[in-house]
């Protein structure tokens, strides 16, 4: 188990721990962001073997056949995922601001207490 896959697993578990135990809504949003970034790290790590080049042809027209490119498909998936992460974060933060306007607190324990 190399360090990069281990870091992806550690970040996923750290984000999940943050979502499960914290009662502060902004900390929960931060935890979800860390989980999403861990998945992105894993996807991009799948695409790169040692000795690869980035999947963009050099400017010369005749490409020497010795260049091996990195895999472009996980990189394209990661690109879409980054923009979707931004959209998800925007909607979550909008909910946090609206909850603050309704309950005047962003502590989950306090909100549950007010509701019941």
């Amino acid at each position: 188990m190399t360090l990069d896959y281990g870091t992806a697993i550690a970040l996923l578990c750290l984000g999940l721990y943050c979502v499960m135990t914290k009662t502060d809504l902004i900390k929960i949003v931060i935890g979800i962001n860390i989980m999403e970034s861990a998945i992105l790290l894993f996807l991009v790590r799948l695409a790169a073997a040692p000795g690869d080049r980035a999947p963009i042809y050099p400017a010369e027209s005749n490409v020497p056949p010795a260049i091996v490119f990195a895999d472009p498909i996980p990189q394209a998936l990661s690109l879409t995922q980054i923009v979707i992460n931004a959209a998800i974060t925007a909607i979550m933060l909008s909910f946090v601001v609206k909850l603050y306007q309704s309950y005047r607190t962003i502590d989950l324990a306090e909100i549950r207490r007010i509701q019941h």
Partner: protein
Amino acid sequence: MEAALTNSLLIFLLISALFAVHFRDHLSAVLALSVFSTSMSVLFAVYQAPDVALAEAVVGAGLGTALFLIAVSRTRSKRSD
């Protein structure tokens, strides 16, 4: 992809994520998250994925941090008048 560069970047990533989870002050946690996104972008560039690195840099360090800062400023409970 040198091992020393990649390993040090990964350890820095873990440390900044730990700080982002640990800080109680919202502003400090959001800034730690911005550092996390920026080092993730550098790591993507080292992994030979320049498109993904560019996208993560503009979204994570630019727009995502701006949205977080708006939310932090709109949810502050103690305002000094």
